């Protein structure tokens, strides 16, 4: 332990603690910008400078480790002057058109400016000295360098959390900027559209591309029937943007709010999550049979999940030789979209051309996924608009809905009934757990041998998880799997996905089934989730997701009555002809830069 003094108060902290964290312990707030709990220390914005007695210069609290007998002052005249200057300097290179900015009132620089910079600006405006281009090339997000304060949170996110490095620092001095490979548009580089950078950008330099007005237009168009689906992870995070603490489950209130916004039908992505389990589970069992029994290696093992569009684009860029290992199943969002304009439209007697399909996702990559040319198997654009959790919160505020006081309600049917297996798709390990709950039962006729169906080995926030499930007591049809050990792995965050993909690619791993989610924590930590998202918040959301699962009457996908019905009435059988037409897709090899 190390003892030091901050503002004349003594504090004892572990060796290696930063001055910033030691101050936090005393309840002393030191402002920060480039610092983010998910990322390694940068120490480059310098907003957190404090005075250390005896030091020649001020020190950055976020980067300075504590030392025995250290004497720190966080609020001296020297500190205040420097901090004011730094905030003013950042403002001078930042296009501060706050009232026009998407991040207005959610901008960390603006918050600091409110505290440190009012009245006349000291310094000259530098924004006009640069030729800033706004990159709108990605369907998922907008990159506006004129708002960028070069804190490099995005760069560190892309490299450290995602192992993508689609963006990096280019040039030096006054021309230093965050850029892509050869300044190519973001739509033409390895960017996976995961939006983790968007979630961490302190200003309006990186924002999701918003489709709020498009959705309003559709809602107000009397000719259009607007259906909305909500992803599992949205219900455990939306509350954060509407005044609740992290971890609050607001499913019922969200449904009511969506209805009040004017959507014609409020449906659930969890339904197609259940459907994914049936399709993907069947695909896995088929692959196992082909490879293990029939020795037919035209199908590849291990099989990777395909629900996460960030992961899909990652593997297309970085491991294109393994595309055959990806499940051909579309993501639940896209299965929903394809069914909304076919099955749903038929059942409700609607002209599919007049159905507008909107999805609320914790994700920015879903915006990109919806735009993929493959995603038109209904004959129309399967998903018209994708909104993030944050955008939904904005719409709810715009509509003047008092979220705290509205009564919860239930999803509409059809395609609104779901199970606990569907909801856990929102957490890392959830798809695996849901798949095992169903596959094990198909093969053995018995539920998975875990208490309360909770397959604990696949849960939790560890970056890479592995589990082995021994299959015993198989039915006649699946006798070839008797005694077999199903080896599974789970990774979340692309840096971990890369570890597994590399191990598989080099033959160092012998898994059968691998779940991969592009974002840390899975969808609950998605790029479209409320800001801030960090380890503590993800933990809360995860607990909420599993609580949601425990509260569901049905917790196995194959027991969802609407799933049984859709196969009887429309799809016929899992992996059947119609499924392949509507629910499965193919992938594209992409460049590696």
């Amino acid at each position, binding site marked *: 332990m190390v003892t030091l003094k901050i503002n004349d108060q003594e504090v004892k902290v572990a060796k290696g603690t930063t001055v910033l964290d030691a101050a936090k312990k005393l309840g002393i707030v030191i402002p920060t910008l480039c610092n983010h709990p998910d990322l390694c220390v940068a120490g*480059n914005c*310098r907003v957190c400078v404090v005075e250390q007695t005896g030091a020649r210069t001020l020190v950055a609290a976020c980067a300075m480790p504590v030392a025995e007998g250290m004497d720190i002052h966080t609020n001296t005249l020297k500190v205040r002057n420097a901090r004011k*200057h*730094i905030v003013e300097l950042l403002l001078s290179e930042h296009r501060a058109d706050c009232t026009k900015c998407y991040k207005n009132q959610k901008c960390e620089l603006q918050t600091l400016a409110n505290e440190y910079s009012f009245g006349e600006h*000291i310094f000259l405006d530098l924004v006009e000295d640069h030729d800033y281009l706004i990159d709108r090339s990605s369907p998922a997000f907008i990159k506006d360098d004129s708002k960028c304060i070069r804190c490099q949170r995005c760069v560190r996110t892309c490299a450290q959390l995602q192992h993508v490095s689609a963006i990096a620092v280019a*040039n030096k*001095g006054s021309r230093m900027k965050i850029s892509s490979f050869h300044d190519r548009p973001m739509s033409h580089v390895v960017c996976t559209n995961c939006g983790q950078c968007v979630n961490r950008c302190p200003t309006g330099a990186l924002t999701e591309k918003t489709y709020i007005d498009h959705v309003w237009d559709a809602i107000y168009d009397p000719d259009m029937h607007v259906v909305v689906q909500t992803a599992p992870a949205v219900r455990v995070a939306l509350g954060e943007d509407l005044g609740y603490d992290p971890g609050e489950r607001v499913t019922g209130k969200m449904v009511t709010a969506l209805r009040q916004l004017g959507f014609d039908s409020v449906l659930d992505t969890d339904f197609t999550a259940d459907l994914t389990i049936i399709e993907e589970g069947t695909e896995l069992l088929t692959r196992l049979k082909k490879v293990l029994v029939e020795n037919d290696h035209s199908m590849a093992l291990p099989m990777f999940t395909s629900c996460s569009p960030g992961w899909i684009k990652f593997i297309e860029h970085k491991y294109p030789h393994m595309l055959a290992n990806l499940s051909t199943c579309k993501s639940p969002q896209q299965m929903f979209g394809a069914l909304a304009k076919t099955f749903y439209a038929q059942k409700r007697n609607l002209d599919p051309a007049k159905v507008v399909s909107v999805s609320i996702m914790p994700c920015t990559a879903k915006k990109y996924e919806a735009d993929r040319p493959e995603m038109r198997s209904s004959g129309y654009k399967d998903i018209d608009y994708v909104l993030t959790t944050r955008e939904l919160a904005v719409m709810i505020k715009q509509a003047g809905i008092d979220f705290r006081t509205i009564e919860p309600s239930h999803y509409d049917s059809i395609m609104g009934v779901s199970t606990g297996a569907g909801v856990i798709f929102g957490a890392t390990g959830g798809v695996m757990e849901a798949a095992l709950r169903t596959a094990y039962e198909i093969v053995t006729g018995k539920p998975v041998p875990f208490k309360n169906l909770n397959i604990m080995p696949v849960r939790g926030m560890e970056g890479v998880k592995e589990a082995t499930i021994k299959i015993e007591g198989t039915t006649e049809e699946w006798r070839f799997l008797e005694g077999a050990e199903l080896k599974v792995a789970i990774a979340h965050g692309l840096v971990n996905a890369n570890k597994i993909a590399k191990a598989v690619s080099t033959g160092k791993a012998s898994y059968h089934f691998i779940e991969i989610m592009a974002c840390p924590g899975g969808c609950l930590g998605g790029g479209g989730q409320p800001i801030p998202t960090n380890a503590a918040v993800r933990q809360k959301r995860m607990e909420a997701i599993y609580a949601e699962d425990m509260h569901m009457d049905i917790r196995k996908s194959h027991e969802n009555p609407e799933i049984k019905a859709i196969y009887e009435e429309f799809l016929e059988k899992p992996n059947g002809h119609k499924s392949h037409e509507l629910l499965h897709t193919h992938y594209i090899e992409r460049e590696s830069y």
Partner: protein
Amino acid sequence: MNSKALTKVDLIFESIDAREVLTTAFSMPNEKIIDQVLESGLRGRGGAGFPTGMKWKFTAAEKDPEKYIVCNADEGEPGTFKDREILDRVVYKVYGGMAIAGKAIGAKKGFIYLRGEYRFLLPQLYLELHKFHKMIAEIGYDFNIEYRMGSGAYICGEESALFESIEGFRGEPRNKPPYPTTSGLFCKPTSINNVETLVTAMMIIAKGPQEYVKLGTKDSRGSKVFSVSGDTPVPGIYELELGMTVQQFVDEFGDGDTKAVQVGGASGFCVPRKKFEETIIGFEGVPTGGSMKLFNSSRSMYNVLHNYLDFFAEESCGQCTPCRVGCQQLLKGVEKVKKGEAKSTYLNELVKLADTMKVASKCGLGQSVGNAFKSIVENFREEIIY
């Protein structure tokens, strides 16, 4: 004031028997090498002036079996060209100094980070390196040196940015602590020394610290190689004993009309004529990595300042706010004042900004921009405004 007369010295370029010096050094206990360098009072010749013996002592104290000695040959300070001359003429002494430093700190591997613009020296340097490796092997000692090339960024002369560059990353300074002596190149304990420092250290071992301390003053021991340029009839490289005043220097090198001397390059200090007498060139006065630029009365100090600020606005790595934006603000600010588009009192705001840059920037680059800025603005304010 204890100034010394201007005395030319020949220590750095003096020929010595490297084999003999190294054989002696390799037989010395590590502590003794470090003690001798400590005793000599040698301070880093790159500009910052950290006591070399201390640096070696700290690195030697680290337990890690893998350590490095790095020679900083990224000579980039405007107006400095002495390391090029040293490399060109006596590189064997650079290698020797590295081997001695390596012995003292326990490093078997050395890297020389060579300024990109000095690539033309490489064939000659490699030839000498081959000879050196052969000699070391003959003495029966294990030490190996490799070259790494810079690519033209001024910031890569900053020690931690230099490590990043060698490691293959963008040259951006690291947070300190940890200091290089604990975690330097490849996060291993590293002693990084300037070209001239290493040669001087070898000469101290060759001649003994007692000889060396006879030169210079209490705060600035020994001699130093100066790169003399600007308005002088005799530009070039001169090795001089430390402790002279700027006046003595100007008397020797000036053209009779010197109005200011920029000591230590763009990151150094501008000494105006009225302070020539009272200013000692050395750590007790104005320290320098070697750059001495003389300006006569035909020069506009606004242009001099503008040139430096332009340089910094381009050569800041851009990582930290005070340096990246501060340099641009200083540059744009003096331009506006000069054009009459900002009030002359705006210079006062800029001086305050320079103070902030000095205490809040992440590395020595941003911290030293204020040196030239303030010393020129304070001494030649009228030239900036009118």
